[in-house]
């Protein structure tokens, strides 16, 4: 069977000779393919599928630590998936390829339609077809009155129903309405391009920086003051607006009444009271709360986190203060068990470092030191001490952890090999070998502030709202054509009216439209 087919296929069947397509022809063919509705549909579905892995795998841009953890937990799959870009889906070339192709397809589809629609908006409805009864919806009626008068009545009735009406000759009317459907559709698609441009603009020219600010301290908006700073590719980070922000007070309230599951200690309200000074303005009181960022005019300041900064003072052997200040500890859980480090580079003979926990409501049991409530009911500072070199290779390190490579533990007072301190506010502990003392003076809260700018967000928002408006118009409005033909009836003084309706889309309301037109005629007759 297959052999005979093959034989006839190659020998007997005359081949159609196609003209050579040439580069321009191929380009045109590919453009046609790309801008077809089928391709757009396929790309849409592909975009949906391509977006999914970003929710199933941790994303580096959202949670770098979790991503690194995932990769080290999966030594085989991790690096492979990483190379495929599955941990940075929305910045990956294949995701970009899908949406860029989709937008090219969209432009290729919309631009010709824009031209056509522009012409249609300025032209009159087409001539009535010969046989109106062949149209999808049709009605016929004989009414009193001369054909011209009847036609004028119908013209008025159609105009009242917001049709654009034109008479190509003496016996017919052509009417059309619903141009807004195509207008809305085009606005929707063009606005999507606006959304894309807005997003890209924000990415290129926006930046964000995070800073941890203890109560009482002032933040000056300069690059060096930020803990982390991620600028867009076109941002000049030396040109930040030089405003300052002082954190006067930070209020945090937690649930203390509701003992339901997961409710006791749940956060209820965070408010930061600040003094904001614009580059050439007077200081003004401003509050920042969750859902209420501070708009500085050059970036918005969001209150995205908070925690505790114990105030610690370290004195040397002769009582001179060699370190004092609020030292932020990072919260690790919902009860604000916080970790941090106190680094004292000015200590003699060796540099001193302390690492450990701050516990707002401290408990030390078989789980180790941890907090059982996020508010300051029984604040404790649990530290271990080290002496040696704090920054052995001069490399930058986290301020919240102590690099103990080049350090040795301080011995405990009672002969243990490790100095362990548990301090409550006001407590002072002597350090061994006459190295001085450490005092836990007090505790302040800190605010985790995030400063962000996104110059594209207005364009994105306006485009998105335009897209929504266009979408509603394109779904609700119906494109309809109504044709009318009048002629004298057999009996004198009467007119036969024939009305046909043509809907552009699947439109079950067209019959009603024709009926209404005829009823209008009856009503006025």
């Amino acid at each position: 069977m297959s052999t005979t087919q093959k034989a006839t296929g190659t020998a007997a069947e005359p081949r159609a000779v196609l003209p050579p397509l040439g580069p321009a022809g191929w380009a045109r063919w590919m453009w046609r393919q790309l801008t077809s509705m089928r391709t757009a549909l396929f790309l849409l579905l592909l975009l949906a599928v391509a977006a999914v892995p970003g929710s199933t795998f941790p994303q580096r841009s959202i949670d770098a630590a979790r991503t690194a953890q995932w990769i080290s937990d999966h030594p085989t799959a991790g690096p492979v998936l990483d190379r495929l870009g599955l941990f940075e889906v929305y910045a990956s070339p294949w995701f970009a390829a899908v949406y860029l192709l989709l937008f090219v397809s969209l432009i290729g589809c919309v631009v010709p339609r824009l031209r056509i629609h522009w012409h249609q908006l300025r032209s009159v409805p087409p001539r009535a077809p010969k046989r109106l009864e062949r149209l999808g919806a049709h009605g016929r009626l004989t009414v009193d009155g001369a054909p011209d008068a009847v036609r004028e009545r119908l013209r008025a009735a159609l105009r009242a129903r917001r049709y654009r009406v034109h008479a190509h000759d003496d016996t017919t009317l052509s009417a059309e309405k619903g141009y807004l459907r195509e207008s809305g559709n085009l606005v929707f698609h063009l606005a999507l391009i606006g959304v894309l441009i807005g997003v890209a603009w924000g990415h290129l020219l926006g930046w964000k920086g995070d800073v941890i600010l203890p109560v009482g301290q002032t933040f000056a908006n300069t690059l060096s003051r930020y803990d982390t700073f991620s600028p867009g590719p076109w941002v000049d980070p030396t040109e930040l607006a030089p405003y300052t922000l002082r954190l006067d007070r930070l209020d945090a309230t937690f649930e203390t009444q509701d003992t339901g599951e997961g409710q006791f200690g749940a956060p209820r309200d965070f408010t930061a009271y600040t003094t904001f000074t614009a580059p050439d303005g007077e200081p003004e009181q401003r509050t920042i709360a969750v859902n209420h960022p501070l708009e500085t005019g050059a970036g918005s300041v969001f209150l995205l986190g908070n925690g505790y900064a114990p105030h610690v003072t370290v004195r040397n052997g002769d009582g001179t203060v060699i370190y004092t200040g609020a030292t932020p500890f990072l919260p690790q859980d919902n009860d604000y068990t916080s970790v941090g480090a106190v680094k004292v580079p000015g200590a003699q003979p060796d540099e001193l470092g302390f690492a450990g926990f701050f516990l707002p409501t401290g408990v030390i049991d078989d789980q180790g030191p941890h907090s059982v409530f996020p508010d300051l009911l029984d604040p404790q500072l649990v530290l271990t001490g080290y002496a040696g070199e704090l920054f052995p290779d001069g490399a930058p390190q986290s301020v919240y952890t102590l690099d103990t490579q080049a350090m040795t533990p301080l011995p405990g007072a009672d002969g243990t090999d490790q100095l362990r301190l548990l301090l409550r506010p006001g407590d002072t502990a002597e350090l061994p070998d006459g190295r001085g003392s450490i005092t836990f003076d007090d505790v302040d809260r800190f605010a985790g502030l995030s400063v962000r700018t996104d110059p594209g967000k207005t364009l994105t928002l306006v485009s998105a709202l335009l897209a929504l408006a266009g979408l509603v118009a394109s779904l609700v409005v119906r494109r309809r054509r109504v044709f009318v033909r009048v002629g004298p009836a057999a009996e004198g003084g009467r007119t036969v009216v024939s009305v046909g309706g043509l809907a552009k889309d699947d439109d079950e309301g067209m019959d009603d439209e024709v009926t209404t037109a005829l009823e209008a005629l009856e009503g006025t007759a």
Partner: protein
Amino acid sequence: MTDTTLAQLSNTAVYSAMVVLTLAMLAYAMYLARLAPTRERRAGSGKPEPELVAARTAGPDASSTGSHGDDTDEGRPGAGHDAPGPDEEGEPAAARKAAGVGYALTVLGTLLVVAGVVLRAAEVHRWPLGNMYEFAIVGSMFVLVAFTAWSTRRDLRWLGLFVVLPVLLNLGLAITVWYTDASELMPSLRSVWLAIHVTVATVSVAVFTIGFSLGILYLVQDRLEVAGRRSTFMARFPGSRSLERMAYGVHIVAFPLWTFTVIAGAIWARQAWGSYWNWDPKEVWSFVIWVVYAAYLHARATTGWKRQNATWIALAGYACLIVNFAVVNVFFVGQHSYSGL
């Protein structure tokens, strides 16, 4: 902080609603079952119903003919029920009664769910959309309200079973698996956008749910019509063309609502988290849902694409909605961690 008596009353209302809706479901099922013999008798007596024949012969792409009331969508007041539903005259009294009981019970069930939601809100002194349990009962409420309201405009007794059933399923899951004690909100949820964004999202999902039921009924009906089988059961439903139009009509209401949900969510995300789009899992899935339903609308407008295939895309969209609610809320790590579980 919260009033336990109101909380208990709210739960009682939801439980009562479930009992009432179960009865409503049975009544609607009985309605469909009691209708069957009549159709068979009619078909056997050689007097087929004109509407059903018309629906069978009309191809999916044939444009509507001039015969009025064939399957016109708009319910004209005073014109009685339009043809798509089984006409009342031909129904046995028992069937009519069952449908009447079903509708009455559905209205009662709706009122009870509304009461449950209102009591819950009164108890927590806030908009009752703070955790998964509340999303579920408010979503159920919107489905029921939409259905009972739409029922006043056209005969939807054949659809009753397929609305009450998913609602019951949802309420059952809500009160067993997703139940969360009434509580206050965490700071990030305290915003006027909770009322705007989450309410519209819930309305949208409710409308998509009705669209999903209609989509499935359409595909079943269409398959039977193509096979030429005179199924006695499916003959109780409108013709496939009419079902498909209704499904589309419902989806074009829900889709702009979902678009608005995404935009409002982005505005709120900017207020609360500093950036209007973070590719948080919930955002990813909202985006996926939007794209899939956009593909449905595209497919339906594409010449050469069958309506059946387009409807399959809409069903896939609904599957994504389910994932977004039942899977993303509970199992995915993200900023939308408000399930309360």
